[in-house]
């Protein structure tokens, strides 16, 4: 007896299409996830590198700044040394402030313990 031709059932047809779609969606998701992971990995790798470069620039600037400040410090030290010239100090002391060297009788040595302050220890 000839087989009655069966009307194609919608359910299996849909399930196959759906399954295909689902499969393709999963593949897409997997691909997307993979891409995201790769991108994340790349970013994770690059971020410290970029940060390192940024810090390098900053360090370079700070080094230049430090050199300039050290240079300024040197200039100020020279100026200080120049201002501390004994000739200049003596001039100020004698001419502007009216100071004069002490007389012998005005100098007093203070005994500290066993020796006179300023006197050599024997």
């Amino acid at each position, binding site marked *: 007896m000839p087989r009655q031709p069966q009307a194609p059932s919608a359910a299996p047809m849909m399930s196959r299409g759906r399954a295909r779609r689902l499969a393709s969606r999963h593949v897409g998701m997997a691909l997307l996830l993979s891409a995201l992971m790769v991108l994340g990995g790349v970013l994770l790798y690059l971020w410290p590198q970029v940060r*390192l*470069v940024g810090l*390098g*620039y900053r*360090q*370079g600037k700070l*080094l230049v700044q*430090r050199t300039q400040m050290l*240079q300024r410090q*040197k*200039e100020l*030290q*020279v*100026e*200080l*040394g*120049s201002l*501390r*010239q*004994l*000739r200049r100090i*003596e001039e100020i002391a004698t001419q502007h402030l009216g100071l004069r*060297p*002490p*007389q*012998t*009788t*005005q*100098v*007093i*040595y*203070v*005994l*500290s*313990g066993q020796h*006179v*302050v*300023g*006197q*050599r220890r*024997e």
Partner: protein
Amino acid sequence: MRRTGRCKPYKGPRLRLVLGLFGCLFCAIFIRLVVVQIFQHPYLRDLAERQHSHQITLQPERGRILDRHGRVLATSVPVPSVYAIPDDIEDPDAIAPKVAAILGQPLATVQRQLNSSSPFVWLARQLPPEVGERLQKLNIRGVQTLQETRRFYPKRHLAGQVLGFVGVDGVGLGGLEHLYNRELTGTPRHVTLQRDATGRTVQIMAGDPSEYPRGADLYLTLDERLQYVAEKELATRVQETRAKSGIVVIMHPPTGDILAVANYPFFNPNDFHDPKQRVWQRNRAVTDPVEPGSTFKLVTASAALEENVARVTDMFHCENGFVVRNGRRLRDHHPYGLMSFSQVIEKSSNIGTVKIAERLSDNQLYTYIRRFGFGEKSLVSLPGEEEGLIRTPKKWTKPTHDSLAFGQEVTVTSVQLLAAYTVIANGGWLMRPRMVEHVVQGDESQFFAPEVRHRVLSPQTLERMNEILVGVIERGTGKQAAVEGYTVAGKTGTAQKVEHGSYSHSKVLAAFVGYVPAEAPQLAIVVMIDEPQLAKWGGEAAAPVFKRVAQQALYYLQVPSRQTQTLSLETILDPTPTPPSGDLEPLRGISSAGAKSGEREPARIALSTGPKIEKERQPAP
């Protein structure tokens, strides 16, 4: 059936052509890769490294020179220098006026430099920082600034001849700068940096650019304050006597430390280019030996006493100031008759000294001259030191023995003469004069200990010589060297200068050498005044300088005088009120003298720290 038939793969000539082309292309790429990766690898690696990595050389900063208390006498500061690359300048004549105005140079000079055919031209070196900044603001293509270091001497001429100077290329050319150039210069360091396309530093590959290499710091035995006092008083006296020049050297006898070396006229190392300055750049205390004159009688007298050929009580007839011996006329500055050994030295009689010396053989006299360190370098760490001139007895003529007795036919440097007098001040030991105390390089320090050379005299001779030298100040020619409150020992000298092959009657070298306090010497000082016009004798021209320098130096070193009052710290700190005594008055604002008269005077207590000096009266050999 959906598949109606399969297309047969095309294997025609076009495909083969395409495949062949791709094959060739891949072969070319492969060959190129082999060439690049294998054969050109080292070259390309270097090329790449050069593009992104950059090696810079950090030139070391020249070390400082400091006094014994760490006060800076010489230091280096980075300053801009300006150069031009003429090929890069578009319109030299247009920018020349701007550059010339900033640099303060003649326009014609700048124009000539900017139009030069040289690839590199220095426009100006070691300029003030603000000049460099102004020039940088102009942003002229082909005109650039470069940082160089310049040597600065903040105390100007203070110890200028001792310190020396440094040329524009950073090399020490005189004085200690020259002698210790290697230590002061240091070693350059290299740092490798990674740079981007714009030249900015991305990363430090090797080395630490934040720590600049430095040369060693040189700590001298000099004391800035004593140096200042010596220079001030020397300059004053040279001007007062209208002399040509002068020298003062201060030494600490127990250690041989040189505390001051003053040469007048001064030399300011900051202006070493100035030809007027350069005339006086030599440190004449070691480079210019001179005849010592009567200061040399120390050797004759010491030798006679040490060899027991004379006693201090022996009498000598001084021929009333004139005698002819060995075909040579000898004169004294005053006519003297019969005098004792001590008086001969105290009054500085040439004839008397010659008669003392005749008791010594040539070899004996020569031996003592050498024992006192004459005729050889004192080994002080100063460049250009001369050893002086003393001939061996074989080369002596008839009058040489007499001449040497009172300091002729022999030349000595100021430092040698001072070292000889410290023998008396130092228990009979000859010390090596010390100029550099220690050298500091980073965490390492090299210390130069005081060095004893040898024993010259016995304690008995020393005691007698000390009494004689004290007598020179108290009763003899050196009265003007006396310092109130202290016992001074020393000897004057007036040496005739040699002019046109004979001794000049108008040009003399006035000298004084001595030490103080005589009972426990802390300072030995030599003063030399060259060609004084107003006071010609050593006791008049040079001795007052000794007095002034010694007085201030003793205050500074806090060596109490006989008149100095002392108080115990406990008395001052005791809060319980005590009836005011004469000694306490000054601390409350009234001096002892002022208290009696009712005047109020500010009292001063000397509490400043002096140099760290340890007593070594009789150092071990």
